């Protein structure tokens, strides 16, 4: 996994609530057996019209916006547990998703793929969305070490929560498998002593 420290980037606004993983990557694209290439079909049915032509009204197709941060509406990533959703977002080039609320499984999947979910208050989310839409050149600074997200050149800044263990993993670029393998002896001991 790539290491994550501080990210300076422009951001893409997507002010829709309850974005479920079926929207992020529809089921018909889940037939691949590796992790690559899902970015092409990210938000497929919003990004493209039925005839395969890009929908000019969708934010990812708006040339005004770019960057590796997606600022999305409340309750992002609900629904199916498909990790393909996190892969699609990463594969598209996103590194941070900001929302006022994340579904549990999505949050875990994102963290396991070096994609940082940043949960902010509803008010701060509003501020972000309005700053970005007012000026699409707006830069955001996501500092994982200090757990802050800031609108560059403004007083708008807030802190976000992240599990201390997950933070260490992201900063160092290692994952849960490494940790669990280091616990093999304890796991074996647990198995032989199982009380249930």
């Amino acid at each position, binding site marked *: 996994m790539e290491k994550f420290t501080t990210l300076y980037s422009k951001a893409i606004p997507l002010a829709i609530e309850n974005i479920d993983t079926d929207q992020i990557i529809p089921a018909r694209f889940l*037939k691949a*057996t590796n992790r690559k290439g899902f970015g092409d079909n990210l938000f497929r049915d919003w990004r493209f019209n039925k005839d395969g032509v890009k929908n000019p009204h969708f934010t990812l197709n708006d040339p005004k916006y770019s960057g590796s941060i997606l600022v999305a509406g409340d309750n992002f990533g609900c629904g199916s547990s498909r990790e*393909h959703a996190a892969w699609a977002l990463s594969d598209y080039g996103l590194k941070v998703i900001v929302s006022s609320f994340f579904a549990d499984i999505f949050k875990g*999947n994102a963290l396991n793929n070096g994609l940082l979910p940043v949960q902010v208050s509803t008010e701060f989310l509003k501020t972000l969305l309005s700053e970005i839409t007012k000026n699409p050149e707006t830069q955001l600074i996501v500092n994982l070490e200090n757990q802050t997200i800031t609108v560059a050149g403004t007083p708008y800044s807030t802190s976000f929560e992240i599990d201390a263990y997950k933070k260490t993993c992201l900063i160092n670029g290692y994952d849960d498998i490494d940790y669990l*393998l280091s616990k093999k002896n304890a*796991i074996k001991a647990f198995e032989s002593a199982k009380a249930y």
Partner: protein
Amino acid sequence: MKRTLFDKVWDAHVVDSIKNGPQVLYIDKHLIHEVTSPQAFNELEKRKIPIFRPNQIVATADHNTPTQNQHLPIKDELSRKQLKQLSQNCKKNNITLYELGHEYNGIVHVMAPELGITQPGMTIVCGDSHTSTHGAFGSIAFGIGTSQVAQVFASQCLLLKKPKSLRVSVNGTLKNNVLPKDVILYIISKIGTNAGTGYFCEYAGDVFENMSMEGRMTICNMSIEMGARGGMIAPDQTTFNYVKGKEFAPKGREFENKITYWKTLPTDVGAVFDKEYTFDAKDIDPMVTYGTNPGMGVKISENIPELNDDSFEKSLKYMNFKKGESLINKPINFVFIGSCTNSRIEDFRVAANYIKGKQKANNVTAWLVPGSKKVEAQIIKEGLKDIFDDAGFELRQPGCSACLAMNDDKIPQGEYCVSTSNRNFEGRQGQGSRTILASPLVAAATAIEGRIIDITKQLN
């Protein structure tokens, strides 16, 4: 300390705890399927890590399988490749696989309970959010991502933070024709789709105590639709009777010992939950959804609410419904009875009981998709197939089918489908399809009438 059912099962599985961090939780059973496992197998192979406990893993093919002509080679190349890869991965790693055509094949959340793989007090995971289904047995069961599938492959454990506890109680007696599906749609319509986020839910009260195991599975199945990672119901005599004698259930003395243990699991009187909701059974009616998340549900006789909210309006626009209107008499061309929520034998009995002697409306395409080969066999054995055939319904072969429309079972653009599945998201049943979630009874009645009717009026 008074402990909850969840506490008891969780605590018994903690191998280790990281200071200020997650816990290492031991997993008893790991269920896998073709869609969310290949990348995990690849990951382990790449890192040269062996599968730690292959005999605690059971595999099935369900999401991407055809529901017709299962004996023929699969036409779609990608699907065929995905299934082939599952077979190869299982073979190479000595994992039991019930592949397409096997007498135990079926949707993972239907086949595991009916084979006795699912038992009380266990921890069960699967790369599928509706793993919550297995909580009906008083086990901790939840969906995981593919990275976590790889973690369980490597260590039979997961790193997790213990969720908070939530209890939803429903007391009293349900009205006639109110099914478990209505109960859970009602609960979600009241508390919303993220009331459960961060929580593990326990369902309590006499409504659940009096429910069959299949009904309990329908309830726990949809825990994820209110945001909860999982839901559970205390094991009791109903549970023990169901598990007893199943293929992989413990037998004889061992079974008796297990029961003694399982009886210690229910929540202690006086245990405190982080959050509680209580409902009255008599307030619940047959339900339908009108929007694009499972929380957007109303009693079938109620009108769509009138809210001024962007995402509510976006949802109604997608569904082509108006604020304040009723769904009664809306013409419907597609009906789907299936999915891990409602594809067990009781669901088909309810449908057959209503359908018997009637004819499907001409405008309707009605698909009945059993959850497993065993359910399919039972449908035939009980003569339900004849009832369905006579009425013009199409009984297909088991699989996830139109629940997620990964195979050819897709609802066409713009069409409504009254579906017994669990998700009415945009395009879930096919690009541009519009899903109305309901019970098998409401679905059956819709197929007969070709439109939504007030089933409560008709049956009373």
